[in-house]
């Protein structure tokens, strides 16, 4: 009883954690499902078919949509990470008139509901005469826009938490500003930039509401799932869901191992 009281919070916390995994367990399970009919969403039998025939005829359009999401995700991530990192440096390391309004401008897109961001962007595209050109590039523009703030916030946190003694040491040892930047500052900020890029890709890859309004006739993966949800999704959708989880976990584990190795190398 005493034991229970002491560990009550931990137990409750782990129950909540367990709860967050219930739908994920269902996704993984359903990726091995052999459905009797497509309209009823329940587990009927075990099969590896969904994994082997991911891009088969019953998933027409799914792999194309996946490929589109990957391309847009990569491109939007590169652009958002690049310009967001520059802005983060300016905000942490420089003092300039307009700094606090810039901070506010960066913050606002994160405080606006997606439906508002999406519909206002669509209003702009329509009024500017691009209603017929909605597609890859309008999705790209939208994704860079909403990823940008998250990049700035992530890189800014890393920069702000950074101690500048190493940079001072480099300068004391007659490193030029360029050498100091590329050999000391940049490697130290890199994990933050890397984290920001991962977050960007995840946000872009998973976005539905903004994309749906600005995509024209293009179909990203979330839009494919949305479209199929009305008629019953193919089980391969769960394979993609499971793969996303696996990829994310691998990236996190590799990143963490990398950090540990670096930390170990530094203390040697």
């Amino acid at each position, binding site marked *: 009883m005493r034991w229970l009281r002491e560990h009550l919070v931990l137990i409750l916390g782990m129950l909540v954690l367990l709860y967050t995994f219930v739908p994920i367990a269902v996704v993984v399970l359903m990726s091995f499902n052999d459905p009797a009919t497509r309209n009823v969403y329940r587990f009927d039998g075990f099969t590896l078919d969904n994994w082997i025939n991911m891009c088969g005829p019953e998933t027409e359009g799914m792999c194309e949509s996946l490929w589109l999401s990957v391309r847009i995700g990569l491109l939007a991530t590169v652009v958002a990470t690049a310009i967001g990192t520059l802005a983060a440096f300016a905000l*942490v390391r*420089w003092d*300039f008139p307009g700094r606090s309004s810039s901070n506010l401008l960066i913050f606002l897109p994160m405080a606006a509901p997606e439906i508002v961001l999406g519909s206002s962007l669509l209003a702009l595209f329509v009024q500017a005469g691009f209603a017929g050109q909605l597609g890859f590039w309008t999705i790209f523009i939208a994704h860079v826009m909403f990823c940008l703030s998250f990049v700035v916030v992530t890189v800014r946190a890393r920069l702000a938490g950074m101690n500048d003694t190493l940079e001072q040491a480099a*300068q004391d040892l007659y490193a030029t500003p360029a050498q100091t930047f590329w050999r000391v500052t940049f490697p130290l900020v890199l994990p933050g930039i890397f984290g920001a890029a991962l977050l960007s890709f995840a946000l872009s890859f998973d976005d539905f509401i903004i994309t749906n309004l600005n995509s024209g006739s293009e179909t990203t993966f979330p839009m494919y*799932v949305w479209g199929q949800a009305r008629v019953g999704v193919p089980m391969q959708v769960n394979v993609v869901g499971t793969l996303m989880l696996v990829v994310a976990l691998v990236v996190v584990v590799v990143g963490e191992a990398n950090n540990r190795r670096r930390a170990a190398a530094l203390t040697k």
Partner: protein
Amino acid sequence: MTSTAGTVPVVDPGDPGAPGEPDALVDVAASGRRRGRTAYLLMAPAVLWLALFFVIPFYSLIAASLYDPSGSDEDGWRMAYAFGNYVDAWQDYWQPFVRSIAYGGIATVICLVLGYVLAYAIAFKTGRWKTLVLVLVIAPFFTSFLVRTLSWQLILADDGWVVDVLRFLQLLDDDGRLLATDVAVVTGLAYNFLPFMVLPLFASLDKIDHRLIEASSDLYSNPVVGFFKVTWPLSLPGVVSGTLLTFIPAAGDYINAQLLGNTNTRVVGSVIEAQFTDANQPYVAGALSMTLMVVIVGMVLVYVRRAGTEELL
């Protein structure tokens, strides 16, 4: 975010071509930040992007909301400063609107309770497993939003075990159901936005100095009183940012309402989407969108004021 303040100037990362001049030539602000035009060059691309694709679209949206409602895509839309659009949109769609706010609010409260327990357990009880547990908290949310929402369809289905158990416990009538009800929509929302609550809560709980809590128990406060007098007030910044980060997307979301609800759980998000695309009534969509934004910003301001953490923004 201004913890870099130091006495010695920091390096100039944006000007790698400059020769290694002594620091005396650089005008350093009291905060340890440099001054100079380079900052504007660094800010320019991001500010330009947000100006073009975030600020200007707002004006487009306001403009669209004031169109003459007699226009059409074929004949074109005429700006008529038709403020009546807002009244009409509200009269036609106040129900989905209120529903959105209510769903978002209830989901946020559920998230706060579940998220606080989880964040508290991670910050104070997991010890060296902290990082691992934190990764586990985020992991489920790497699966596609839509795919994990669909999996709630299965969990809450009429022949699913959740409904069976609830019927057995008589918490649900024999023909009662979960899927396609308000309960399902709120469940989905509270699930999908949980990490937005847990992470800020954890960040502020993790910063609390354990000695303060020990001090309160040394001074004979019981754990419950100690929690409400020490831990809770210190975690308020996390509570405020967590509730905002949960409420704002939850109030605007329509994926959960559409996949887990029914026609009576329609929320304002799907009305806006439909009015803009299929119904071709951009003025209705614009008016509803603007109203949603204003209501949310208003609620956020009042809430932040009352919570007394204005510096958060």
